[in-house]
């Protein structure tokens, strides 16, 4: 996987991966459609990035924006494939807005199916572009991302939290589409995914 100079780093202090919390239905207050979901879908992973910076935990790099002539390219990291996918979503969001400044007022539950991991990643990230384009939704956080094998491929579900675009937010880029160009998913010391988006 090619590296290249780091242009921007997003650092975070992640909670232990093993910390899983089964969130009860109260988390879904006011979202009747979600209350109908099987409880197995409501398995949430602990908040990434919610730990205080004073903590002694080692810094974990979420993603790295890489130089690319015409478009946006990034690598995202995670101890699991799910975590790497979640960080890829934040990396892509960072090309358009400052996700760290986005609150958690709006939630969208998403569920995508794909023939393989690569298509799953493309479809997952495309979902964020779609929500931005149609609902002016700015992603601020990815919760409870789960990837599961299906009869003919894979499925992914996640809760996307964020806000509706307002004058308070600054946009600085337009991602048109997620491409397969140079797309890589590698398992080595956790997971690294690499994506090029069309801007």
């Amino acid at each position, binding site marked *: 996987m090619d590296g290249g100079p780091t242009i921007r780093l997003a650092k975070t202090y992640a909670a232990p991966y093993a910390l899983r919390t089964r969130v009860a239905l109260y988390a879904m207050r006011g979202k009747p459609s979600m209350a109908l979901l099987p409880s197995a879908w409501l398995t949430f992973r602990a908040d990434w990035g919610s730990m205080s910076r004073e903590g002694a935990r080692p810094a974990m790099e979420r993603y790295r924006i890489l130089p690319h*002539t*015409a478009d946006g390219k990034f690598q995202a990291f995670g101890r699991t494939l799910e975590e790497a996918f979640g960080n890829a979503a934040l990396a892509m969001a960072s090309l358009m807005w400052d996700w760290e400044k986005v609150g958690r007022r709006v939630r969208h539950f998403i569920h995508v199916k794909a*023939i393989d991991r690569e298509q799953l990643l493309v479809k997952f990230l495309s979902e964020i*572009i779609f929500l931005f*384009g*149609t609902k002016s939704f700015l992603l601020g956080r990815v919760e409870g991302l789960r990837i599961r094998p299906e009869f003919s491929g894979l499925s992914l579900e996640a809760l996307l939290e964020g806000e509706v675009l307002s004058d308070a937010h600054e*946009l*600085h880029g*337009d991602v048109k589409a997620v*491409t397969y160009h140079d797309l890589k998913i590698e398992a080595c010391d956790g997971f690294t995914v690499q994506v090029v988006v069309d801007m």
Partner: protein
Amino acid sequence: MELRKIDDNTWEIPKEGEMRVPAVIYSSARLLEDIRRDQTLTQARNVACLPGIVRYSYVMPDAHQGYGFPIGGVAAFGLDEGIISPGGVGYDINCGVRLLKTDYDESEVTAKRKELLAEIFREVPAGVGKGGVTKLSRSVLKEVLVRGAEWAVENGYGRAEDLERTEERGRMAEAEADGISERALERGIPQLGTLGAGNHFLEIQKVLEIYDETAARTFGLHAAGQVLVMIHCGSRGLGHQVATDYIEAMENAFGVAGLPDRELVHAPFMSPEGQRYYRSMCAAVNYAFANRQMIAHWVRDVFARVLGSAKGMDQVYDVCHNVAKVEEHEDGGRSRRLVVHRKGATRSFGPGRPEVPARYRSVGQPVIIPGSMGTASFLLAGTKEAEGLSFGSTAHGAGRVMSRHEALRRFRGEKIRDDMARRGIELKSTSWKGVAEEASEAYKDVDEVVRVSDQVGLGRLVAKVVPIGVMKG
């Protein structure tokens, strides 16, 4: 990779391995340095491996690395044995350029250019996440998809004669809305009549130099100093979604095994998937034609309001830069119908072709090649030779040489604005960061691109124009 020099501006990658045809690159030695730096040539070679490819996999002088096909790539495939690929068109289907002329001279506009630009900025929605002013129903959107600019003219946007001066008369007849997903429709509804962001722009320009008097006069350009308006945008989120949807549909139908690059996923042109993509792509092309038609109408409104009249603001032409079309071309001494993919390339049909509007048929079609933000743009005329050289195609612009992030690191939007102001160019944008990313230094030298085009015979130089006011999305 072996690259054989044919002449000063022509290079060839000989057929090897799985290539079905050789690849031909039209480029000067100087532009080739940039082209060699990224994956453009590998991508041109990959295209040469696709089933049913005819003659050559072509690379235009402004080429740079794309997804699957290079940007600046042209390839044609037989209808029966060939394929169609969303990667050969690109995500921004019918990203293109429209040029309007005016009867105003620079001297009549200079004092008012700030006001003109401010009014256009108010009238034409632009920027990331910016929706349009038109609230469409699904059924009206479907009508737009099928009828393109025709729909816009019928609904009061612009003039009937604009249609004759638009590629395909502003409507690809093969378009069907049935294959457009709900998601694409949803993205398309709020964005009709918007400029968008990224490299999209709207410029008030003046003619700097005329190289070909006859062609210039035929196109409506009469002297240096004449004011023009150039609109560069595409099919917005709708087109991006159509591309995304059909890449997935083709992957699911045909699998991805054996593809050198998944962006090269394709379907036989005559297969149900191929036909559905083609008809949906045509619908997205129509959406973009309608989009530019509406924006042109608003620009005329502003000119009428600010300067008193929009008389003489005729459309010169409107060209597609990202498209696949069925066209008649010579192949081995006989004429046959081919599906020509132009990705970041402009059709450049010469005199006599029936597709060229009657009023331009004696000189060839107008070919509009925009430069980067704040630099010169060019008007060329299509040539007869180009049909043999590149299925009647030429370059589409400057082409990036520097990443957006590198540009952001090096340039400041506000400083670019000040520099441009010193050169007499007014700039308005929704984002200074966006301006920095589009700094002209991040692009190839468009003068060199059109020089090669002219020398090779892909397009004949007609006029050079420069901006006096720039609106960036």
